[in-house]
Each structure stands twice: as structure tokens, then as C-alpha cells.
């Protein structure tokens, strides 16, 4: 059961201020030059009022580079120093519902067999205040993957825009309640009809369940080679994606000391599956492209009962050669 409130922009501003005073870091999508970045914001007016950030907010819980441990060589011994993730409580303010939904897809992997303390600590310290979408673009396909422009999944608070100005704030979790408590007096409970700006229209492009079924028979289809002809095998799609979770572990050391780092990795890159023997089971781009689609739309639902994609479209926007994933998926679901 969620609580709904009417909040004006001023109230949101007061909430942000209160959150900052309480020692929280406030991050949100802000227009910087010609792009939108998730970065520190001080007021709600700094938020980009349309569009999405290029890179997702996953860096808040799964940074692009993260230190796992340190070590020192002392004579013949190695002194290990475990690293406790230093996390400032954070509010992700104004991200899209699709991005909020994506945290679950990361969660199922980071809590699968081993409970990842880094991810868990960061997620526990993050409050998600999402902003539902009144606009969408050609790359969006949230409605094809079980989501909607006003999806509440993954949010602690969901904001929706009012026609008359201001927002409805739907407080969905205890974390959301704790945040609202910082400026409780300013939140007016919603009574009756709100007069919301209608959510964006995102016509479903394909049915994810149908896609999953079709994929079962298409592993050897020439479709993948055809679709991936222009794919360059870079990591742009994987790194901007809010659900992509693959990582590499690197030791950076000298003769006296070192550190173990975790960094983002991409299945689209040629060396991703290169064995020490020299054999590479995914040596062709078509195999890697196929893997990307199957991982998100077949293996994920099989293993985790959830899709590995939230339809945000960041991959398509970031791709240097316009591998419009929505188009490819529609074709694959035929």
C-alpha cells in the first residue's frame, strides 16, 4: 500500500536540501553540454526535463571501477587488506522508471550464489526517486518488456507530473518513507483525482514472451550474422545499459603492493570469451551478438524469472553504428 502526496517544485527543492543536510549525496540526470549525465545536483530545477542520461545510473551501485581489496608483499608474506565499500548515502533523483526497474536485474546476479557486499552495501544506501515519463523517443521500448512509462518497480518514490504544475509523489517503500520524513510537513496527502499529465505513449513493438519462445528455435539462424554485420564489437551498449552486469577483475600491482579492481566488461568484445588456450567459442561477432540477445531475453528469464532488459533504449542511442535493438528484437520475434 503506497502513500500518495502532492508536492510542488518548491517542496521537492526543500526535500533535496533536507536530504543534502542529512549527509546524503544527491545525484540526478542533468544537462551538461549536449548530453545528459547522472551527476550531483543541488536543486530540482537542474534536472534535465526531457530525455534520458546517456550512461545509466547503475554506476551508483555497480561502479565502472571498484576496489575489492589491497595487498602488500612483506618479505615472503602477503598482507591482505579487505576493502569495506565506503558509501555515502545517496538519493538518485529524477531517473526514469525503466532505470529504477533495472536494479532488480542486477540484484538477481549479485545475490545469486554469493552475496556481493559491494553491490548490496551500495544498493542499501541508495534511495531511488524516479520520475515517470511524459515523453518517449524512437528508441524506447519499455512496454515491450513488461514495463511502462510510470512503472513503480524498483523505485522508493515515484514522481508523476501534474497538469497544473508540481508532482504527485507515490511513496512505495520504507526507504521512501524515511526520505519523506526529512521534509514531512511539506508533503500534502493526495485526496481525489490528481490531474496528471498522461504518461508517454510507447506502443509495444514486440512481445517478450513470444520472443523468448522464438529464440528457442533460432540459435542457428542466419539472422544473427545478418543483424551483426555492422556491429563493431565495442562495449558502448553494455556500458550504458542499466541491466548489463558482466565485469572483469584486474590486479594492478608492483613488486611491493597492489590492488584488485572490478571493472565493467562487455560480451560484445572479442576477448570476452578468449580462453588461455587461444580457443574462442565466440570468435565471430554474430556469435557475440546472438549471446547478447539470448542472455537478456532467454537465459535471464529462464534462470531469474525476469528479463535482462528494461527497454530504456540507451543501447540504441549510444551505438555508434545504429544497431537499433528494438528493430532487431522485433525481427527476432517474427
Amino acid at each position, binding site marked *: 500500500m503506497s502513500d500518495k502526496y502532492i508536492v510542488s517544485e518548491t517542496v521537492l527543492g526543500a526535500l533535496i536540501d533536507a536530504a543534502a543536510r542529512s549527509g546524503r549525496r544527491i545525484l540526478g540526470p542533468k544537462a551538461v553540454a549536449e548530453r545528459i549525465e547522472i551527476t550531483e545536483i543541488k536543486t530540482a530545477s537542474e534536472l534535465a526535463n526531457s530525455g534520458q542520461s546517456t550512461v545509466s545510473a547503475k554506476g551508483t551501485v555497480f561502479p565502472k571501477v571498484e576496489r575489492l581489496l589491497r595487498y602488500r608483499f612483506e618479505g615472503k608474506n602477503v598482507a591482505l587488506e579487505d576493502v569495506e565499500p565506503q558509501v555515502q548515502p545517496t538519493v538518485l533523483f529524477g531517473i526514469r522508471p525503466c532505470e529504477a526497474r533495472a536494479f532488480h536485474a542486477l540484484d538477481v546476479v549479485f545475490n545469486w550464489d554469493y552475496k556481493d557486499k559491494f553491490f548490496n552495501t551500495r544498493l542499501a544506501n541508495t534511495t531511488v526517486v524516479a520520475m515517470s515519463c511524459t515523453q518517449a523517443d*524512437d528508441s524506447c521500448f519499455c512496454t515491450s518488456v513488461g514495463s511502462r512509462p510510470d512503472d513503480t518497480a524498483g523505485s522508493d518514490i515515484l514522481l508523476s507530473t501534474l497538469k497544473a504544475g508540481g508532482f504527485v509523489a507515490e511513496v512505495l517503500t520504507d526507504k521512501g518513507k524515511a526520505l519523506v520524513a526529512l521534509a514531512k510537513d511539506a508533503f500534502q496527502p493526495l485526496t481525489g483525482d490528481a490531474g496528471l499529465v498522461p504518461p508517454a505513449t510507447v506502443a509495444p513493438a514486440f512481445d517478450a514472451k513470444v520472443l523468448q519462445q522464438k529464440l528457442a528455435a533460432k540459435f542457428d539462424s542466419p539472422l544473427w550474422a545478418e543483424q551483426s554485420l555492422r556491429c563493431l564489437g565495442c562495449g558502448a551498449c553494455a*556500458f550504458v545499459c542499466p541491466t548489463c552486469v558482466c565485469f572483469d577483475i584486474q590486479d594492478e600491482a608492483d613488486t611491493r603492493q597492489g590492488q584488485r579492481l572490478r571493472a*565493467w566488461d562487455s560480451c560484445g568484445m572479442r*576477448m570476452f570469451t578468449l580462453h588461455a588456450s587461444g580457443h574462442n567459442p565466440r570468435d565471430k561477432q554474430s556469435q557475440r551478438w546472438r549471446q547478447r540477445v539470448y542472455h537478456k531475453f532467454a537465459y535471464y528469464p529462464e534462470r531469474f524469472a525476469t528479463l535482462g532488459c528494461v527497454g530504456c533504449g540507451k543501447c540504441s542511442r549510444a551505438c555508434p553504428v545504429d544497431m537499433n535493438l528494438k528493430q532487431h528484437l522485433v525481427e527476432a520475434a517474427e
Partner: protein
Amino acid sequence: MEELHNKAKELLSSGAVKVVMGYGKGTGESRRPIFVRMAERASDLVVDSGCTQNLATYLTKAEVCALGRMAIVAIPSTLRSILQLAAEKQLREENVIALAVIDGQLRELATFDAIEQAVATIPDAISEADRTMIDKLVAMSVAERRAFWAAELNRCVKCYACRSSCPMCYCERCTMDCNRPQWIPVASHAIGNIEYHMVRAMHLAGRCVECGTCGKACPIGIPVHLLTFFAEDSVRRQFGQKGGASAKLDYAMSTFKPDDKEEFIR
């Protein structure tokens, strides 16, 4: 454009080429690389001001080469890349035909000589915006430049869109992939990113055709092409050699003059 469609149709139906690689309509107003193999699809090819990506990167992509002899719709930078690839023995003359669009005219260039002659008539030009930005950076103090590049390159996520989209980055095993020793760190922290981009700029100095595709490819919006442009500029200024001028190798970094002039060696 109709000329291009007819030419493509002709080349494909006669079997002269197996694929015509060019630009097609992409998402929204964008253009995307397309690989036309059926004559009936020749009209998918588009040529307009939105066609700015250097497609020469596909000339060394295994899956594309496997399609057979190809024709490539070539903007000026693509022609230069073909010459540079030829000079570095990455292309055989009989495997590629360039369909060059120069001053609104379509020209079929089937030999490296023909391409060289065509390129000689096209003025070198990096965009105003890029020239202005480089001049601005050069005018800054060292500390200001360091702050600029540290801030920009800290945002890099090491997706390698720059490297993958560059026609000259065709090495199957890039220096980044070497892990014994791991010269340049894999993780995308600030210092590792600076090292990577500097190494890439040095590996391109004298080979870069200044297409700017790397900068356009960057999903984060980092102007990485300014580094390679600057390195190329430095080579041109100091040695009078440049990338993409000839199918005969004239690579500044593997040649020298006994009297190369400098003033900084004590």
C-alpha cells in the same frame, strides 16, 4: 543518388562485386552502415550530409571481407583510409572499388592510383569547430589543459567505441590486449584512460586521416578525435608527412631524416 543506385545495381547484377557497402536510413534522421548484396536493394543506399561515418573500418572486418569483392561508397576520409590501408598492406586493389562522391559527382575508382589522384584534388579540412577547439586548447596553460583532459578522460568508460570505429585500428591483438605485461590498465580509472588515449594517439600519428569518426563514436561525448588530430598535426608540421595521401607507405614514425630538426635534446 540515382547515379549511385544505378551503379550499385550494375555492379551487383554483373557479379563484379558481391556487396556494395554504404549508408542507409537509420533511426530517426540518422544514417547507418548497410551492406547491399541484392541489386533490387540498391535503392536503400543514401548519400547526403548525414553520411559522415568513415566506413573504411569495415574493409578489415572479417565478416564483411568474407562476403566477397566489395564496392564502398566513399566520402573523402574513406578514400584516404583506403590509401592508408593499402599502404599498410591491409587491402588488395582487386578486392575493393571505391564509389566516391566528390563535389556531388559520382566517380568509380577501381585502382589505388585513381584514388590517389582523386584525393590529391580534395583539400584537407578538419571542421571549423574542431580547429577552434584545438586552438583554444593550445592557447591554455599546461595546468588548464591537464584539468580539461583529466576531467574529460575521467568520464571515459573504456568501451573502445573509438578504437572499434577507427579504420586504422585494425590490429587483431591491440597493445591494450597485451597482459604480460599489462602496459595500459584495463580498468577505466582516470590515469588508465589518459594512458590509453595517449597511446592510441601515438599509434595513429602519421596514419590518421582526420575523419573524426572516433570522436563521433564516443557514447560519452569525449572529443577523443582532438588528440589524434593534434598528433597528426604535429607529424605534418614537423615532418611534412601525413596519413592517407598515398598507397605507397610514407609513415613518419618508421622513417627518419638524419637531419630532423629539434631544439629540446640537450
